[in-house]
């Protein structure tokens, strides 16, 4: 399973790297908009992550966790 996940990840990255066109810094206005951020609202995201973490078996992503339990 671990090997499968790694292979998928590497393949995906390779495909994407090949697909990207050069975008100059002055063409990145739309990308810099607040609503285009990966996490436009860190407070709400961290709250929702904590609720989901305490209700579901799955967790993980581009963050390090922590913050105790709060389970019931």
């Amino acid at each position: 399973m671990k090997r499968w996940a790694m292979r998928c990840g590497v393949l995906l990255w390779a495909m994407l790297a090949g697909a990207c066109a050069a975008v100059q810094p002055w063409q990145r206005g739309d990308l810099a908009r607040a609503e285009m951020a990966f996490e436009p609202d860190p407070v709400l995201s961290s709250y929702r992550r904590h609720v989901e973490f305490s209700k579901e078996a799955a967790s993980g992503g581009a963050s390090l966790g922590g913050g105790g339990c709060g389970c019931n």
Partner: protein
Amino acid sequence: MATPKSLMAKPSLSALTAAALALPGLAQAELQTDYLYSHYEEGDLPGGRAASGQSSERYTIDSHLFRVVAPFDDQALTVNATYETMSGASPWWVQPDANGRPVQVMSGASIEEERFDVQGAWTLPLADLDWSVALGYSTEDDYEAINGGIEGAYALQNGQLTVSGGLGYSYDQLDPEVGASSTDVIADADKDSFTAYGGASWVIDAQTLWQSTLSYTLHDGYLSDPYKRAFIVDDAGTVRDARPGSRELWALSARFRHYVAAANAALHVDYRYFHDDWEIEAHTLELSWNQVFAETWRVTPAVRWYSQSQAYFYAPYYASARSDGLASSDYRLSPYGALSARVDLRKALGEWELGVGAEWYDASADYAIESVDVVNPGLVEYLSLNLRLARRF
């Protein structure tokens, strides 16, 4: 008239880098404060799913979250604090009714708890990388945890590709309290958790961003729930919830952002595949539409779908005790799916920003990717309402 800052488009490299790295608090130009109040309420357990035959109230949580981001030079200090109070009844164990159908036994409605959590992060550029060092502490009546971590990000190809990664550690201590619904609990226990992730984000074109991340977590120690029990038919009684002493989790996630200029909106698509060595496999897919009106309003409707398979040792109840001594009837380890829908509204007023939001979440066997033979009766439904207040200085 002051400009509403946070909703305005600000095409700059530093803003783009912050977005692309998704590292909190990176290189912001002004002091930012943010407050969220949330009221979370679980739906009643229906009488038909309860051993008592009576419907039962479940959990209510009131949360206050504060966030301050203080920039200085090219560095920033971020502090997140959470205070929440929890009350209500919780699933205790599952037993068969006269027809062998699993029904839920709830704890007494006497749980009253509060949790305080503080997380600090310092972000700084060093040796061509952007670093973030974090420390945190969380405390409840019966639970205490400290955590720390370090994250780094490196931009390549003129910022077109950003590679990032992080390492984290958490030490958690439990000291379960004896009560009317917890007469037979362990004295105390602890666990260690290590997390590592690595990923990359790409500028695909002038309107599209993509991020992929692979994360790994190892939990080692006491991973059971000290307050839950499991029913053994042969013994006509319950035993303590008992789970393996270690757990390895893998998550592969992808996040897609596309700006639709004609609509002045951004489409977000997030997907995560999860697998662990308790044989749980899960999929999470979330879609949101971030619509900006008149540069000062933002409305974000979103839907989320989740599906998981069960842990190998889970059962709603057991005919006889397992030979390995493991037992858990926790709905979190059961096979199910969940759907949620939410909408958030933000309005910028000069230096201030106001907001409201609501989310409805429903867990059910019907939403699971594979058919579920026996549904856990403790699956949860909740409604969460939030209020927001933010100010930039």
